[in-house]
């Protein structure tokens, strides 16, 4: 996917539930936005790198990781790296909070 090089407002910080993912469609890019228990936000590509995919925004969130709901791969929200013994990486996106609004750079 090519970067669009823009910053998009996607939500307000307050409306995001911790330990959950939110699917966001920006043009044709599918992004999963997560708020973890400690309050940090992460945005990653909403598709597991497993050959058959998996919608990551629906996955179970534990600490700074998400488990793919279809094939149970454990993926780091911080850098997108799939944890051993599986392999791969999903794209991560920069997230910023300005005046309570959440922006994702795509």
């Amino acid at each position: 996917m090519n970067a669009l090089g823009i910053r998009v407002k996607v939500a307000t910080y307050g409306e995001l539930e911790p330990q959950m993912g939110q699917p966001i469609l920006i043009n044709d890019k599918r992004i999963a936005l997560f708020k973890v228990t400690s309050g940090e936000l992460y945005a990653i590509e909403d598709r597991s790198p497993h050959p058959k995919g998996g919608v990551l925004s629906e996955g179970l969130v534990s600490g700074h990781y998400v488990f793919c709901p279809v094939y149970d791969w454990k993926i780091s929200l911080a850098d997108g790296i799939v944890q051993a013994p599986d392999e791969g990486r999903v794209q991560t996106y920069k997230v910023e909070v300005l005046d309570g609004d959440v922006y994702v750079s795509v």
Partner: protein
Amino acid sequence: MKHLVMIGNGMAGIRVIEEILKQNNKMYKITIFGEEPHPNYNRIKLSNVLQGDTTIDDIIMNDWDWYRENNIDLHVNEAIVQIDTNNNQVISERGTIVSYDELIIATGSSSFILPIPGANKDGVTGFRDINDCETMINIANQYKKGVVIGGGLLGLEAARGLLNLGMEASVVHLAPHLMERQLDSTAGAMLKNELEAQGMKFLMEKQTAEILGDERVTGLRFTDGSEIEADLVVMAVGIKANTKVTHNTDIFVNRGIVVNDFMETNIPNVYAVGECAEHREVTYGLVAPLYEQAKVLAAKLTANDVDGYEGSIVGTQLKVAGVDLFSAGEVEEDDCTKSIRIHNDFDGVYKKILIRENRIAGIVLYGDTSDGQKLFRMLLKKEDLTGITSTQILQTSCGVGGGGEDVASMPDDELVCGCNGVTKKTIVDAITTNGLTTVDEVGGCTNAGRSCGRCKDLVGDILAHTLGDSFDKDTATKKTLCGCTTLDREEVIAEIQEKGLNSTKEVMYVLGWKNEEGCSKCRPALNYLLGMLNPTEYIDESNSRLVNEKMHANIQKDGTYSVIPRMYGGVTTADDLKKIGEVADKYNVPLVKLTGGQRIGLFGVKKDDLLSIWKELDIPSGYAYGKTLRTVKTCVGKTFCRYGTQDSMSLGIELEKKFERLDTPHKFKMGVSACPRNCAESGIKDIGFVGVEGGWEIYVAGNGGTDLRAGDLLCAVKTKEEAMEMTSVFLQYYRETANYLERTSHWVERVGLENIKEDIADSETKKQLIERLEVTLTRYTEPWKEALENKEIQEKFYKKRQIQVEVN
């Protein structure tokens, strides 16, 4: 950017591309031409498709998205007809002309079709690609008599497939025994016996002279004048390299396209890899050597230093129609060989080690292949056998327990888990660097033991050896809740009760979980256990449930969902049917299907439509997604059926209404039949009722799924009330004692039916089980209705966020 063009879109070629992309994804613009209409699929698994174990979709290795994401220009259904090596161009059958800087030929091989009269008739096929599979499956729908020419691996797999498709399967073979390239006559005869027992027929030492019939095949005639009838002929006599694309070029072709150790042909910038290539006068047909070639070629093309490919000695681990085989090196004795043979006809095990000049020259194993890797390594390393006794040679390295010495002498590079290619060294390193203490943890880190599981004992031995004194056998084989804790289910329950823990977070914090917020295994398990132990106070955590139970709909692999409303006992009304029909129509539901549990499923529903569909249906959720009561299947029963002795529908409806939504360790299915003809299949349900004169028989722990198991008779009761009561008792006993995700079939095998019967025979125990279940049943509300009434739930789980932005 240089342009890399590949002719062929199969396993060996795509492995080259994957390796190149891994090294440097900016180096080439890549174009691939494939003759077949599919993306790269696992050709090895074709026999599973034919045998009905898997579908074509499941054997796709690189889907369309993979090509797109890697910017590969893929042309399927488009064969290359000419290579112009002077102008560095390829020309396709559609007239596409593409220039290349580097060209890979990876056209694979095709079935060798015997050049005999009639070989082009309808109903004659090879067995090499998806198209061949589809041809066979279609013919099997209409015809009966299948004949396979060739009794090698491929031929036998094809014949097994034809049997599964309901055809007769006769195998015609030229040699006196089957698989003569891998097996000797003894093993070949054992295999033949086994396959005959499975229903195959064999015509040995027969050479086909002609295929009979007009347009369509009707039979075969052999060189001895005899004939056999046939509706389908599968040619599986061998494969030949596809080299047609090199016609009218100077590329040198012998049996295959001739390449050097770096997969280079005699023409600059043109390479060949895989089954179409001939290296040092050998063409290979197994995947391991082809992947080795792919690695060398990728390194060459990314300008990395690499040792050339030196050819492979192939050790073949095979499974033919359920029989394990291993074969490597020479097969037949001659004057200079001596052999060690073990032949246990009773257990169906045969082992032969051929020894030439004190070194292993060949291995044939039938039935038990556990020694295969060890012997193969001795063969490759040409180990001198002087002074080693034959029992030592054949002693299995996988001995159960106490294998410390074997493990110590086992070389680092020996494969422990053949399924996943994990060596002893990988396991030892994982244990020491990550401080692992259990077999499951080793599996988690390395994949060892996660496929067939046969190597788990050996992994245990390696653990014992590596950890030395700190090894604790009980810990190592203990079934912990998951990798986050060293406690097992019983210990966790004891702690929860003793310390009064009441949330997953508390449990994980107080009991020292390794991962603060657990994982996808323990969170759902803890959520279940807490709700089971403390039904009145524990607040269910949706975030600790996996997606299906959280969303109250089944997620499909493309991210759409299915909606399956309740249909109590499989009984419906015109009103409900109308609503289902209208919803399916209005929301363009791609698939409306009767499920196996006697209800109607709407499949392929978009997440955005879930709430509106539930609202318009106004029928409770069927919980087709949950670890809970799924359905109660019923027959028509005595109300309408002349054989029925009981009112199965009303018992079924009552059961489903009472127990729906109850959380259970795994899914739970019920069946109610009104007579022993058992139309509702009560014998393969978690609990099943069979009506007899004067009462009901109750069967438990049946399973119609992965592990087919007939239910055991728990008891017989006289009335519907007693049947309901016994269901409560059994359900609650299962809820309280089974491991999370343990079906009743496995649970009953583990704890023993007699023990269960004995426990619930006590009237006080029975009373308490029923009481605890009744309290639990008050916990639940209808989830679809709840979602429709609760703004917070809608916001949290079903909100759609879609943003359009202008891009400059």
